[in-house]
């Protein structure tokens, strides 16, 4: 009777996919800059990111199933994050387009500036729903622990960077970086847990 999978199937594919995404995006970004592709280059990168994200999510789900880490709530979370990601891209590009071409002012300018936040707020909502909807108490415990690590990362980097910035030692970082920094912390927590288990 085998209790634990020594090498989960799809693990290599998962790593290769992430590597392939970095290489493909790097090549696309280089081509975009060197050939001065402008919007076309940006669209090309977005399509690449979207395609690879779908493949990585699917590979991640297969790996989670094989290692006994998967739950229906996680599948729902992944779908919500994909939708939120798509909303974010549309909101961001829409806001940039509106800013460059329409030059809105007043309340309309605030409305367009708020557009990229909608997708990110949906991601925050999806993370909250993951914790509240998960019925498997151990998986929920792990989500909460990872989230706390993400929060600690954000608080630590935000505080240290803020004081460095205050004394003109480092450049300004926009506050929308909060969610990506939190997500990086979350990712580190998940990777270190996988390394231990």
């Amino acid at each position, binding site marked *: *009777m*085998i*209790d*634990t999978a020594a090498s989960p199937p799809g693990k290599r594919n998962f790593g290769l996919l992430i590597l392939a995404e970095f290489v493909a995006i790097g090549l696309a970004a280089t081509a975009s800059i060197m050939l001065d592709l402008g919007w076309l280059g940006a669209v090309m990168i977005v399509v690449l990111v979207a395609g690879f994200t779908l493949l990585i999510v699917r590979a991640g789900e297969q790996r989670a199933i094989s*290692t*006994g*880490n*998967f*739950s229906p709530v996680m599948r729902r979370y992944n779908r919500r994050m994909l939708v939120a990601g798509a909303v974010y891209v549309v909101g961001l590009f829409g806001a940039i387009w509106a800013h460059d071409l329409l030059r809105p002012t007043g309340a309309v300018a605030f409305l367009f500036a708020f557009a990229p936040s909608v997708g990110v707020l949906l991601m925050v909502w999806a993370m909250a729903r993951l914790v509240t909807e998960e*019925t*498997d*108490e*151990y*998986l929920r*415990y792990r989500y909460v622990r990872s989230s706390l690590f993400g929060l600690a990362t954000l608080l630590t980097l935000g505080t240290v960077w803020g004081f460095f910035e205050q004394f003109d030692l480092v450049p300004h970082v926009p506050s929308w970086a909060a969610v990506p920094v939190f997500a990086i912390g979350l990712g580190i927590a998940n990777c270190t847990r996988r390394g231990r*288990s």
Partner: protein
Amino acid sequence: MNNRLKVLRAERDWSQGDLAERLAVSRQSVNAIETGKYDPSLPLAFRIAELFELPIEAIFTSPSKG
């Protein structure tokens, strides 16, 4: 908290996946409880006890009592 989950499961020739399915939890949950990485909540401990038809204290023991 120490537990006899692995022994009880082996006596019934159940895999971790079998036990997880019977308890409606993930296989990782069973693994974490068996290896002492995670102590189950009281409701889950009761479900485990009911599944094995044993009192909770016959499965889970205080670390101070060895």
